[in-house]
């Protein structure tokens, strides 16, 4: 591991000197530092800023502090009652030990698990811009089928982010230039020509909280994840969904897909296709297909199209 200096952050608005990085639970960053993929000169520990509360928002939402541990958020009685999809997504991720350290912001900003990215000795446009993308011809079984580019086909690995994208959560950001908000659906970028940038955050911008807006029908919501073993593995595909059905017809719906793109994939096209349609298997299939016509699978990951399609149907059937 490259050497660094360490300090604790004392204020949310200080920003960062060049070469400095925020440290939260460390479960991703320390791992990448050991691998030589992350090489910060300065680590600024944000876990003592007191951003660890889940507070009620006026009007019925929740403000989830950036430093709230994944295990505490998953166990929060308000989350479990009103947004079960979020609790389920958190519990589907990592392990009990990791969730006790992992934070809201760190989870959102965790990096791809693409094996070339995590190997400092390999070329990779994400850790070394311009060096190429060996995944395209190499191991891409668990990489993107939607929104990828010639330069990068990585997926975002978070489960939690998929639920937050479906729920229209909003990220609160504080930086040297002031405060701003970004919807979770717009936090992560598509790779395009600059896959080295995962998100729209500028250097030194700190996530302080994630706001969860009220969504009455999210009380009927669920997260379903498929992985290569029963537990303690990243998703090969996942779906977060909430649905409202009245007299057999879909009146409203939220859908997002995980492990298919460089960002949690909000399935707006599928949602649009479903509103007003009968809540039947046929409608769910049509909606999934409407979204997945944009899929451009690689040699070894075409199975993800069928997998995601089946997940959409099973989750929506389970909820309606």
């Amino acid at each position, binding site marked *: 591991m490259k050497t660094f200096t360490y300090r604790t952050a004392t204020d949310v608005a200080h920003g960062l000197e060049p070469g400095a990085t925020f440290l939260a639970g460390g479960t991703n960053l320390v791992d990448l530092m050991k691998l030589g993929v992350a090489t910060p000169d300065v680590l600024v520990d944000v876990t003592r800023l007191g951003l660890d509360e889940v507070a009620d928002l006026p009007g019925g939402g929740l403000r989830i502090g950036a430093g709230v541990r994944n295990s505490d958020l998953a166990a929060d009685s308000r989350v479990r009652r009103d947004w079960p999809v979020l609790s389920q997504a958190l519990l589907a991720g990592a*392990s009990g030990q990791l969730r*006790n350290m992992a934070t809201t912001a760190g989870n959102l900003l965790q990096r791809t698990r693409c094996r070339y990215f995590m190997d400092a000795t390999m070329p990779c446009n994400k850790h070394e811009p311009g060096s190429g993308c060996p995944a395209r011809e190499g191991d891409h079984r668990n990489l993107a089928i939607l929104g990828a580019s010639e330069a990068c086909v990585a997926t975002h690995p978070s489960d939690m982010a998929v639920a937050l994208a479906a729920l229209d959560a909003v990220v609160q950001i504080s930086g040297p230039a002031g405060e701003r908000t970004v919807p979770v659906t717009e936090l992560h970028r598509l790779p395009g020509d600059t896959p080295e940038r995962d998100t729209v955050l500028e250097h030194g911008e700190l996530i302080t909280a994630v706001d969860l807006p009220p969504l009455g029908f999210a009380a009927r919501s669920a997260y379903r994840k498929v992985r290569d073993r029963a537990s303690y593995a990243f998703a090969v595909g996942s779906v977060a969904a909430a649905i409202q059905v009245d007299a057999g017809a879909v009146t409203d719906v939220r859908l997002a897909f995980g492990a298919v793109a460089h960002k949690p994939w909000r399935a707006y096209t599928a949602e649009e296709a479903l509103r007003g349609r009968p809540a039947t298997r046929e409608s769910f299939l049509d909606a999934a297909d409407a979204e997945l016509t944009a899929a451009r699978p690689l040699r070894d990951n075409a199975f993800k199209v069928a997998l995601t399609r089946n997940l959409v149907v099973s989750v929506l059937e389970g909820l309606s």
Partner: protein
Amino acid sequence: MDLVVNGTRRSVELDPRTTLLDALREHLGLTGAKKGCDHGQCGACTVLLDGRRVNSCLILAITLQDSSVTTIEGVDHPVQDKFLEHDGFQCGYCTPGQICSAVGMLDEVSKGWPSAVGDAELTDAEIRERMSGNLCRCGAYPNMIPAIREAAAR
């Protein structure tokens, strides 16, 4: 820096790169926590940090000023007797991590924390899911499950 380990305040001088696991094993003479993968993937390094189970291999010791760490050397819990009674191990390499994890897990259950399987009784499926962060190369899982189930009932 100062760390409270198994109830005793210890002063250590560490390179900032030192993980909690290496601090325990290489600087404090506590070799109970094991290094399996060093990347958060196996659970052999599990300890209790302020009472919660964590992987000590992914935590920089320097971040823990004044925190309280309990390692297997400081654990005194019915899970240990039950592991002996049921032969919940073969080579024993994963065992300190399994036991620390089980102690933390049982506390989570008593606080009503849910798991991906459910939130009510501690069925065998629940134990498997909640203990999935601890791998055992010897595959001694079948005997760990009754050990943990019976420890929970006490």
